[in-house]
């Protein structure tokens, strides 16, 4: 029954569609390293410059326009950190790229007690809010 109620909403959405051109499915040229989008783009895409602080700001762009992220990045790029069950540290998987701003480098067993005290909210986006085997090993 509730599904039938959705049909008029769907019809309204289709009627109100903008009929604009969709974004490209894939960036027309291969981009490597940390791209400075403003080298080519002068519109809103220039704000996606992957400068050294982009690591701390990427959440805002992903929450507003993750389709733009998908032009260059595959889904696995997100799930490597944000799938909530990850066991391997990103910095271990990509040790050949020490220039990347990846979390948990070096000894993190001790450091996580410090980071957890400083800003525990920063753990949620990758580790989720639910119990897991890893935390239960010590936090019973």
């Amino acid at each position: 029954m509730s599904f039938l109620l959705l049909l008029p909403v769907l019809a309204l959405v289709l009627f109100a569609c903008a009929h604009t051109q969709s974004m490209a499915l894939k960036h027309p040229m291969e981009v490597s390293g940390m791209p400075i989008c403003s080298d080519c783009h002068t519109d809103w895409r220039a704000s996606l410059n992957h400068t050294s602080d982009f690591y701390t700001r990427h959440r805002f762009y992903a929450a507003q326009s993750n389709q733009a992220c998908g032009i260059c990045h595959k889904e696995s790029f997100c799930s490597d950190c944000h799938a909530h069950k990850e066991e391997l540290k990103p910095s271990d998987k990509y040790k050949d790229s020490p220039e990347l701003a990846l979390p948990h480098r070096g000894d993190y067993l001790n450091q996580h007690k410090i980071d957890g005290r400083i800003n525990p909210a920063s753990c949620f986006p990758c580790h989720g809010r639910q119990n897991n085997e890893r935390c239960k090993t010590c936090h019973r």
Partner: protein
Amino acid sequence: MLLMLKCGRPVLQTACAVILLSLMLLCTPGVSQAVDLSGDSRTYLQSRETADSTKIIGGYEYLDLDVQNLGNETISFHTGGWLRYDFKGEEFNEKTNDDLQYAYLSFKSKTDNTMVNLGRVMVFEGVAHERVDGIYARTDLRYNFGISAFGGNPVELGNPLDTPAGSSGNNSIYGARLAHQVAGLYTIGASYLKEERNGADYRKEEGIDLWLHPVNKVDLSGRSNYNAITKEWMENTYNLVLGPFAGLRFTTEASWINYKDYFFGTTMSAFTFQPGVLDPNEKVRILGENVAYNFTDKVSITADYKTYAYSIAGDSKYYGANLKYSETSQGAGLSAHKMDGDTDRLKYWEYRAYGFKKIDKFDVSVDVLDVKYTVAINGVSNAYSASLGLGYDVLENLKIGADVEYAKNPDFDKDIRTFLKAIYRFDVGTGARKGV
């Protein structure tokens, strides 16, 4: 094999149905001749010791697949996941583990940025950053509006640790986001999320997200999330970027987080409110400034300063500088930071030096971190780790690598870890047209 392992769980029935549907599509005459199959296989072998000196050797296989042009270039299928098997010892008390991270059939329209994903989807929309077994859809509307919605079964509630005997297991999640933008000037969105656990309200969150570009070289982005159950703000986080002005760029960060409202409903034991760990009435205000200067397009220096002000625990300051040299085939970095807090644990210096270079088919990387605690932890006042990594491109699409890391820290007096990897990327276009 990965899919067979996962399909035994009821929570993945939707994802499995999508995979089955995709395979049927692939077998359809006409479709199989046009599809592009790409992806990568990443195989890792990690050797390490736990704090109680148990040796663990674990093998991981990560597999990501993308199937494009399923009869129509706007229909595609994407899946990725991993599995682990421990050849020696047991990681986190389990010999094996696995995760189907995402698996969905996707339809993308050539107009309106319309997209419909069906299966196990990752949703990043306003207040929501979720994994859902269900549906996610979005489209542009007239007058520069855009709308997105999602619904289904929350993957995070499928953990048996959170499903005690007798619970109904009747879980659901849904949400939506409505946005308006003036291209190049602003994007503002309002979003809502509701999650039910065992048939009862578990999360009700509302959010505002903003990107504002009033003039050239000024970008303000951020979000405010509200907990509609506790009726308080969970967090307000905003970043202001100014520049570049002759190579100089300023980034200011301001955040306010209320623990009681942010961590509401969490079952992760590390985040449940416990004396001495997390106080439910704690509130933190974070203010930070990052100033970066590019000497050339390859050399830059960054100075950063951040303050953490707590309502209950003592305050902290974190500040320092980075010097960075970066090219595609080589790079290096040097950094020093100080954590200056009110408690003993929050008094330390942190140093890092790294470098990497690619020579023909070989690449080498080194990374050294050193932390000097003002007050020793477990009798250790100087913790460090050093790693050396080597890689070799066997083929254009096959890379092998190995690295070793040596560390001394408050938990390990001599910790040696090794990591082997093989990465294979494939891209099989069976049709005349590849890519977009």
